[in-house]
C-alpha cells in the first residue's frame, strides 16, 4: 500500500515513462534557490563546476562563487574561514575527494569548529559507472557519520535533493549531502514532505521492511511491488537522513515486520545499513540483510551492470527480503 500522505508521482511504477533527472541537478537548482533566499550563501568548487552542477550557482551569482582549483583540503578550510565570518559556504567535489581527501580538514576545521559549512559530495555510489573504482564513492557515509556536529543526508531523487540542499542551507551547522551522477526516476513530487532527520514511510507492509537511501529507494519500491505480487507484504522507508537517524521510524518498522533489509550504494561496513543495525541492536534486534557493496571496490561498467553484479539491483533486493523473512 503506497502511503498517500507522501504524494508520490502518479503511475509510480511506469518506469519507462517516468521523468528521469540526476540528483546532482537537484543540488545545482537547490543551491540557486538558497542563494536567492540568503545572500550569505556562497559556493566553492575544486575544478569540477559542471559535473557537480555548482555551475548553476556560478552562473547566477558569479561574485559569490569561488574557484579553488584542484585542492579539496584548502577548499574545506577556506570554507570554514568563510563560515566563521558569517557566510554559508557550500563546497563541492566528487565524494571520493570531498569528504574523502579532506577528511581531517572536515573533522577539525568544520565539525569540531562547528562551522556552518555544507559539503556536497557528487558522483557517489557504484552507479558512477565507467570511471571505475577510483571515482566511485562507496565509503563517504562511513567516514562522515562518525563525526560529531555533522548531519549526513543521501536524498533519493532530484526533487528530494533540491529540498535537502535548501534545508541544509537553513540548518545552522555542518551538513554532508551525497548525490549521484546518473539520471534517476523522479518519483517524489513538490508535495512530498521532507524534514531533516525524519524518514519517509513510502509504503506500508507487514512481512519485512526495506530501509533504503539514495536513488536505490526507487528500486526498493519496485522490489516491494514485485514481492506484493508474490503475496509478500513489504514496508519501504526512505531513510534520507543517516545522521541524526530516525530511530522511531526504524524501530516501528522493525516491530511491525520483524525483518529489515537495508539498501544503499555504499559499503555495508559503516554505512547507512550499519547505522540502522546500531539502532536495532540497542533497542529491538531483528534479522537484518544488508544490500550494498560487500567489502570490495567497484570497477568500470554501465551502472545497471554494476548494480546487478554487486547485488544492488531489484533482483538483489528481492532476494535479500526473502532471506530476511526466512530468518525471522
Amino acid at each position, binding site marked *: 500500500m503506497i502511503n498517500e500522505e507522501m504524494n508520490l508521482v502518479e503511475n509510480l511504477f511506469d518506469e519507462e515513462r517516468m521523468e528521469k533527472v540526476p540528483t546532482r541537478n537537484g543540488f545545482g537548482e537547490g543551491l540557486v534557490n538558497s542563494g536567492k533566499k540568503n545572500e550569505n550563501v556562497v559556493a566553492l568548487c575544486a575544478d569540477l563546476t559542471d559535473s557537480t552542477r555548482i555551475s548553476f550557482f556560478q552562473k547566477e551569482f558569479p561574485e559569490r562563487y569561488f574557484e579553488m582549483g584542484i585542492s579539496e583540503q584548502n577548499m574545506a*578550510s*577556506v570554507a570554514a574561514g568563510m563560515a566563521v565570518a558569517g557566510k554559508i559556504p557550500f563546497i563541492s567535489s566528487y565524494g571520493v575527494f570531498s569528504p574523502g581527501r579532506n577528511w581531517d580538514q572536515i573533522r577539525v576545521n568544520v565539525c569540531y569548529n*562547528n562551522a556552518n559549512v555544507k559539503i556536497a559530495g557528487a558522483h557517489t555510489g557504484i552507479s558512477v559507472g565507467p570511471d571505475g573504482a577510483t571515482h566511485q564513492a562507496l565509503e563517504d557515509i562511513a567516514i562522515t557519520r562518525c563525526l560529531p556536529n555533522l548531519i549526513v543526508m543521501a536524498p533519493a531523487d532530484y526533487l528530494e535533493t533540491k529540498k535537502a540542499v535548501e534545508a541544509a542551507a537553513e540548518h545552522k551547522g555542518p551538513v554532508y549531502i551525497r548525490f549521484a551522477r546518473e539520471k534517476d526516476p523522479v518519483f517524489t513530487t513538490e508535495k512530498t514532505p521532507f524534514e531533516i532527520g525524519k524518514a519517509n514511510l513510502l509504503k506500508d507492509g507487514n512481512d519485512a521492511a526495506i530501509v533504503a537511501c539514495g536513488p536505490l529507494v526507487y528500486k526498493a519500491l519496485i522490489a516491494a511491488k514485485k514481492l506484493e505480487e508474490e503475496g509478500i507484504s513489504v514496508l519501504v522507508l526512505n531513510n534520507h537522513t543517516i545522521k541524526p537517524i530516525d530511530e522511531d521510524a526504524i524501530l516501528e518498522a522493525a516491530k511491525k515486520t520483524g525483518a529489515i533489509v537495508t539498501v544503499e550504494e555504499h559499503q555495508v561496513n559503516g554505512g547507512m545499513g550499519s547505522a540502522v543495525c546500531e539502532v536495532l541492536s540497542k533497542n529491538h534486534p531483528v534479522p537484518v540483510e544488508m544490500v550494498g557493496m560487500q567489502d570490495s571496490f567497484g570497477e568500470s561498467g554501465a551502472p545497471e551492470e554494476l548494480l546487478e553484479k554487486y547485488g544492488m539491483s531489484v533482483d538483489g533486493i528481492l532476494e535479500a527480503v526473502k532471506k530476511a523473512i526466512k530468518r525471522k
Partner: protein
Amino acid sequence: MSYIHDDKIKQLEEKANEMRQDLIQMLLEAGSGHSAGPLGFMDVFCALYFHVLKYDPKNPDWEDRDRFFLSHGHIAPGLYTAMAHAGYFPKKELMTLRKFGTRLQGHPHRETLPGLESTSGPLGQGLSQAIGTALAAKLDKKDYRVYCAVSDGEHDEGQTWEAVLCAARYKLNNLTAILDRNNIQIDGFTEDVMPLDSLVEKYSAFGWHVIEVDGHNIEQIVNACEEAKAIYEKPTMIIAHTIPGKGVDFMEFKFEWHGKPPNKEEAKESLNQLRTLGGKIKSEHE
C-alpha cells in the same frame, strides 16, 4: 620611518618578558605542553596584541575587529598568555591550561574560548581558514585585516602550498601572514627533516609580498605589519626569524624543547633568567 615610538617599544619589550614569565609558570602548572615555540614567538604575539591588532576584549565578536588566526595551534600557550594580558580573561585562568574543564584546551578550540578565531592543531590548515575570512571580508566590503601565524614546519604539509597559491590567486591584500621561522620541528632542525629554504624566494615566486624581520625586534615586526597594509593586490608574508626558547638559555635553539614543559627546577632557572634578563640585571624577586 617607524610606526612605533621608542617608549612604546620599551614598554612592549617589558611586557613580552612578563608574558614569558607567565608562560613558564603556566607550563609548569600544566605539566605538559610546548615550551620552545611560544617563547620564540612571544615578541610577535606582544607586538600584535599590544600594537597592531584592532579588537575589543569586552566584545570579542565585534564585527570590525581584526582577525588573528593561529595555524600552529601547539603554541597556544603563547596565544593564551597574550589574550589574558589583553583582557579576554583573568590571568589566573592561565593556570588551568590543559586541565579538565578548562577553556584553555591543549590545542585551541574556537567555541570554547571567546576571542579565538579558529580551532587548530593539525598543521597546515590555518592559512586556508584565514583566506576564507579574508575572502568574506572582501565580499562584505569590510576593511578589517586578517592576520595568520604559521610555522615553518607546517610548510611540509601540501595544504600550506594550496593555500599559498589561493591567497595569491585572490590577490588578498587584506591578509598578512607571519611565519614563525624558528628552524625546529619535532624530529629535528627543519633543514635536516625537510629542507624549506629559500622561503623568501618561494613566497616571492608564488606572488606574495615578502618581508623578513628579526622576530624579536618589536619595531621591525610593527613596521612590517604597517608596510603590508600599503601593498595592493598581493598578500604579505612576514618571515619572522625567531629563536626557539628565546629568553631561557638552555632552551634556546634546541628542538628537544619543542614539545615539553619545564620541570620545577628548570622553571625556577627559566624565571630567574627572564627576571634578570639573562643575569644582566639584578632580580628583585630573588
